[in-house]
């Protein structure tokens, strides 16, 4: 003999009022008959019978307030059953999912669900591969290194293709895709219309189907048009499909302030993308890292946001001349060892950090400089080990402070190395304003070497 249970009007409803019975005990009910009305402060709803038979006993009289969801409110006697053969136990066994004392059972349920899984441990990332002794180093710009990385991966794997605005015939708005059309043809180097949301989504679709797109945004400012596809489609599909369907895709392009292009074209998205589980975020500071990490990003089976920087494109650095130079994603690098203070930065922030370290050395402060290279997954152990040694830390980023990458680093240091700290972590960042156009204001809005030096001295109490 099935019970009629107090229904929920919405997923968040916990209780309601039984406003009215429309059937009396002994009435025949067919499935779909409205038998009662219930209400909450937000809505009213009709309760329909699911089972056929006779309304047996009304367990909750009309006018009762605060009836918990799932409380039996009446019984229905199926044809041939007698009202006296009523006990609830039977009803329960007929509907095993319905717990005896719903309210209590619910509590118990939540409790048992609270057996929390442990968050995965910090992954162990391999160190950079050894560069064999005697390997020739070629000096090249970051622009060339990125191009070479794409070209090598395209030679290696026919599913890799490059797509974006002006990437083919124009050779790239910042000339990063120079020569790719000539070598790989229009099938694999594709000029798109100015439709970021469209082509980012198309890229994700192609990646779900097994291709490996490298999607260039002319700058990451324009990726805001496409950010829904990046986050809702690229980052989450693997999880939502229970691991069935992921996407191997790289979104790359210049990020952060260029020069004198004002607020809508000068923004650092490091913190934005590094917030998102399901994405990897890479932000190299030099040509060698750019090459090794872009190759890794293209091979990675996950969506990778690859943040470049227009000002760094023209900077040259030695790159090992190896057939296949691939660097691990998720590994920071200690660029300059030191013992007095840890300076953590990435991409263009490294320019400020390294110059500041030189200035500090003149004042007898020996700074250790860490280049994060990857923002997600963040190489926390490297930072923590360094802070345990120096007892002081300064983060440097062009983005804003609130909810920034520096804020995250400071929190992790506080959580994992609190007892080693001799001073609060200091953050150097872009000022909390949209980027101004005027030359003097722009300079003030950006972090400077002096800001880093001052912050480092401050945490050293000097």
């Amino acid at each position, binding site marked *: 003999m099935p019970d009629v249970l107090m229904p929920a009007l919405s997923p968040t409803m916990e209780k309601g009022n039984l406003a009215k019975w429309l059937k009396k005990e002994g009435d025949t009910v067919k499935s779909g008959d409205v038998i009662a009305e219930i209400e909450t402060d937000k809505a009213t709803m009709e309760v329909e019978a699911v089972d056929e038979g006779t309304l047996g006993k009304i367990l909750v009289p009309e006018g009762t307030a605060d009836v918990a969801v799932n409380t039996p409110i009446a019984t229905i006697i199926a044809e041939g059953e007698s009202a006296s053969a009523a006990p609830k136990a039977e009803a329960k066994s007929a509907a095993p999912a319905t717990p005896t004392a719903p309210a209590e059972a619910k509590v118990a349920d939540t409790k048992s669900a609270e057996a929390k899984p442990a968050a995965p441990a910090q992954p162990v990332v391999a160190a950079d591969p050894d560069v064999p002794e005697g390997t020739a180093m070629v000096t090249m710009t970051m622009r060339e290194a990125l191009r070479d990385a794409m070209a090598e991966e395209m030679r290696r794997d026919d599913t890799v293709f490059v797509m974006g605005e002006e990437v083919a015939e124009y050779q790239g708005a910042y000339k990063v895709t120079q020569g790719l059309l000539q070598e790989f043809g229009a099938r694999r180097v594709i000029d798109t*219309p100015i439709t970021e949301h469209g082509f980012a989504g198309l890229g994700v679709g192609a990646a779900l189907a097994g291709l490996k797109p490298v999607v260039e945004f002319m700058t990451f400012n324009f990726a805001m048009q496409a950010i829904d596809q990046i986050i809702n489609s690229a980052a989450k599909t693997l999880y939502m499909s229970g691991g069935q369907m992921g996407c191997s895709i790289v979104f790359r392009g210049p990020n952060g302030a260029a020069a004198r292009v*004002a607020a809508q074209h000068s923004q650092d998205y490091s913190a934005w993308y590094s917030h998102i589980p399901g994405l990897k975020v890479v932000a190299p500071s030099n040509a060698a890292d750019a090459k090794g990490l872009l190759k890794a990003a293209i091979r990675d089976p996950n969506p990778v946001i690859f943040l470049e920087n227009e000002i760094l494109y023209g900077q040259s650095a030695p790159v090992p001349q190896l057939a296949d130079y691939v660097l691990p994603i998720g590994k920071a690098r200690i660029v300059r060892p030191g013992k007095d203070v840890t300076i953590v930065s990435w991409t263009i922030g490294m320019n400020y950090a390294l110059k500041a370290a030189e200035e500090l050395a003149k004042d007898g402060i020996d700074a250790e400089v860490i280049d994060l290279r990857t923002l997600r997954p963040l190489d926390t152990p490297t930072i923590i080990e360094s802070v345990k040694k120096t007892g002081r830390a300064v983060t440097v980023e062009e983005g804003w402070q609130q909810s920034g990458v520096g804020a995250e680093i400071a929190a992790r240091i506080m959580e994992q190395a609190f007892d080693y700290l001799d001073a609060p972590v200091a953050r150097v960042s872009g000022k909390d304003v949209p980027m*101004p156009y*005027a030359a003097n204001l722009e300079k003030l809005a950006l972090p400077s070497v002096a800001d880093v030096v001052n912050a480092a001295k401050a945490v050293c109490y000097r």
Partner: protein
Amino acid sequence: MATASKNKTNDAAVSSAAPASSGSIATFNKDQEVSAYRDMLLIRRFEEKAGQMYGMGLIGGFCHLYIGQEAVVVGMQMALKEGDQIITGYRDHGHMIACGMDPKGVMAELTGRRGGYSHGKGGSMHMFSVEKHFYGGHGIVAAQVPLGTGLAFANRYRGNDNVSVTYFGDGAANQGQVYESFNMAELWKLPAIYVIENNRYAMGTAVNRASAQTDFSKRGVSFNIPGDQVDGMDVRAVKAAGEKAVAWCRAGKGPYILEMMTYRYRGHSMSDPAKYRTREEVEKVRTGHDPIEQVRARILSSKMLTEDEIKKIDAEIRDRVNEASEFATNDPEPDPSELYTDVYRETV
């Protein structure tokens, strides 16, 4: 439906700059010819000066010149009335000057000085004037299209009979938000005029390499928005088309699309490889279809003004532009304290 436009070939400028215009051509009296001449020439000279000043390092970042397209904004402006709103993208200097904004304030914004329209904070791509109903100046391709639709919405909401004019490029016309806007504008019969400035290229991409339907006047067809293709090099044709669209909108019939067939003489911004088109192509439009030369020739051949009188106008305009560049060169940079102002309005 008034999509009477003819299908044109894609071989660029020659046909593009002088399309068989579907619309009529307004007859201009002497005052109109001369005023159109002045307004277009002011934009041309202003832009040439801006280009020079960029070369001297006085202007930074991006600087998108409007040279070649002057008839579009000047003709449209002649069809508008006080209170009608204007909004465009980053190629905006011409629009501001056509709206009656002061060339001094525009140039000083280009140099990032305190006397600029945004006090030096916005630069070339981001300028605004509440007084002249100029709503920017937007750096993100096509972002102005929903905004312009919102301006039209505000007119409908208030029950006034103003229209908004939203300018965007052939490249911008492929962004999704354009079509979201079209749908709402027609659904709610908003007084929105969409002026697509088809200058044949989006950066280095010719229209036929980016667009499945290169007749942009037809881009409203599936929303039932009428559209005309207009010779955007002839200021009279622009004005006539503008008047038709304005009348449609003011009558409460909803939005209207005007595709202006025009041409940009200069590079996309200041650095431009110029490899995507031939020099001859540019030259052909310059010599055959220049919007300013056309008016000048008519003024002279109809003897509305003498050669000397025209020269006098030219000199006056040069003076105005020089004055603007001098102001923009000597005006001080914003006070450093301005860094933190204007992020929020004070709450009351």
